């Protein structure tokens, strides 16, 4: 998994909780590189899971909540880190629709060895349906990202995002976005 996910997770914990919590999380997770991640590297996703596990223990909050919050925060960071990918978007639906055919393509251009999740955005009447599937259990992070992008566009009040609860497990999810 790309290093940016790891480095930004530590950054998120430091900013939103504290550097001490981040330090405990890293130490507790017993990571091989002791948490020295660079965004241009690649690392096993199990190390991210180990850190999230430690955070659950430290905070006492459920993992899916933590993952959603991380995704929500990460959306803003992506906009800061890769502004060229978000320029010109004023509507969240358009942005989300392009996630697969534009953003994932850009990711693969930058990192040819990246294994991006399969994200399919389709229009069903007036609704936008986003299907997520990955070999990594980060469907809740994607869920937070969707919310984060809508918030970035300042349209939180205009759209209702529902998650299809019939889709089991953390590896896959289906989100339906419609106007409020």
């Amino acid at each position, binding site marked *: 998994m790309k290093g940016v996910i790891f480095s930004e997770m530590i950054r998120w914990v430091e900013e939103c909780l504290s550097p001490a919590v981040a330090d405990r999380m890293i130490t507790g997770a017993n990571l091989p590189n*002791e948490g020295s991640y*660079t*965004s241009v590297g690649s690392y096993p996703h199990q190390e991210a899971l180990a850190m999230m596990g430690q955070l659950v223990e430290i905070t006492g909050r459920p993992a899916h909540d933590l993952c959603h919050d991380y995704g929500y925060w990460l959306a803003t960071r992506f906009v800061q880190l890769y502004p060229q990918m978000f320029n010109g978007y004023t509507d969240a639906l358009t942005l989300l629709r392009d996630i697969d055919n534009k953003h994932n393509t850009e990711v693969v251009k930058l990192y040819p060895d990246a294994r991006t999740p399969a994200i399919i955005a389709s229009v069903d009447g007036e609704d936008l349906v986003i299907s997520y599937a990955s070999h990594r259990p980060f469907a809740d992070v994607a869920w937070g990202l969707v919310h984060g992008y809508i918030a970035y566009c300042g349209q939180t009040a205009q759209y209702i995002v529902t998650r299809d609860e019939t889709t089991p497990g953390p590896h896959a999810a289906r989100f339906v976005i419609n106007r409020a």
Partner: protein
Amino acid sequence: MAAGFDPRIANLEAEIELLSRRLARAERARSEAEALLEDKSRVLANANRELRANRELLRGQLDQRTRQLLDAQRVAGFGTMVWDVERKVGELSPHAQALLGMPGVDEIDTLSIFDHLTHPDDRQPLRDYATLMIRRAVALRANPLAEAPACPRGHAATEHCATCRDRRQCDDMFEVRIQPGGGVERNLRLKAQVHIPANLGKVLVFLTIQDVTAELAAAREAERLRLQDQQRLADLEALTRDLEQARQAAEQANAAKSRFLAMMSHDIRTPMNGVIGMLQLFDDAGLTEDQRRTISHVRASSEQLRMLLDDIIDLERAESGKLTLNPQPLGLSEFLHDAIGFWQKVAAEKGLEMTLERAAFIPGQKLVEWVLADRYRLRQLVDNMLSNAIKYTRAGSIRIRMGNIAPGRARYEVIDTGIGIPEARRRELFEDFGQLRMDGVGEGGAGLGLAICRRIVELMGGTIGVDGNEDGPGSRFWIELPITHIPPPQQPSRPASLLLTRPDGGRPRILVAEDFETNRIVARGLLGRLGCDVELVNDGEAAVDRAAIGGIDLVLMDISMPVMSGIEATRQIRALPGPEATVPILALSAYSRPEELEPILTAGACGHVGKPIRIEEQHMAIARILLPGACPDA
């Protein structure tokens, strides 16, 4: 806890430791990032070097391909011009420059430059051609799927361009006469194709230029030769037609002459048979020596005359493809004895010795006795060769040799001590009317005998020829024939006496039906000598009437008779009630040909006897027929 411990210091120390760890993590991350970036830089630098190298390689290959294409143009005698429709600029290949007489002009900016090179009559058509191609290019540029403007000369557009797939082009060719630099006139063949390269976004007219001066000159020369040959062929055909007409006229005239000769010969033959028959009635014993010699000469001359008549008739048959064979069982000893016996007497009259040797030519080959052969035709061969040998030999001997040369193949030789034949003239002996004219020798003749012999021998599948006599002056005539050896059939032994008798010992009673009086006299005389009682009738009806009464042992029935033919008479005798229907009947025939004999044999005759009647032949035929059961039809 130690006095003076300040919790703020402890917190501060913890903060410092935390910051140290964060710093250490950040430092490690930075180092890792630098290492990764360094790797990536190396990879990029290598990739850049590879790209440069590939670009140089591709440029080299492109240069090589371009040179090869230009060489190929030069070798093939092609030049090219690529006209950019929008820029109105054309690039000329080096060979195109050479063909147009414009060395060094590798780019032109107007097509009118060709006007002063072009033959005045070809200028406007060339302009039209160029205009058409440019219009076509512009139309295709505007709408690649549009129909191309039609070729003004009616050539069909190709279905699809092989390069662009969906862009249609005309494969029309155009030929133009030019005078490069005012020099010798050349013929150029132009072929234009509109090309819209997919990645360049421009419209090109691709023109190939070929010098076809030599090709057109060769085509004109070929056409001239073709017309010349055609005329020659027509002349030859006319000549052939004339020759064919002349040949047909000559053949018709020749056939008419042959028919006339044959008819004449046939008509002469009947009285001739009478003469030969009558001559046999002379009893040599009662003659003086002079009379006997005179009669002998008359007999020989008559026989030669008869042979000549037979030859003329046979020549006509051969020319009309009617010469056929009628193979029958034949005993060679008896045949040679009868055939040579006559000629031995003639030879003796001339003081010549005639001998017969029967021996194998090749040691170890067995002599055969009974064969399947056409007696009449074999006799014709023997008579002709012996007659010639006697005719052209003044003194000395005539040797006849006969024997096998291989299993199933016999050779017959007549070796004389005569005048001999120059080697250069031997071949013409066997042509029609090919008798040699040699001063002071021979008795002349039609020259038909050996020609007929050649045709008969060829019909039998054999060969005939003549060599010099190895033992001295003279000639060696030879015939080689395939023979079919058969076991001896049942034959009556030749009686010691010429007298014939019935099985009960009585005199045979023979009825002779013959319309020609002379032949009746001959028949009566010869049959009388054989000890037979003879009754004579003039026609077939009288023969039937007499046979119906009974008491007849044998009927000799002529085929062609007035009132009723021999064929009908035979049929009616076979239809008689009672034992009279079974009387043996022998046909009397001058020719012994199958097609003449077949009707009367079908009607019920048991065999035939040739005319003129030869006493030996008739003796054997009658002797055979008088045997009980010898005539299966009777």
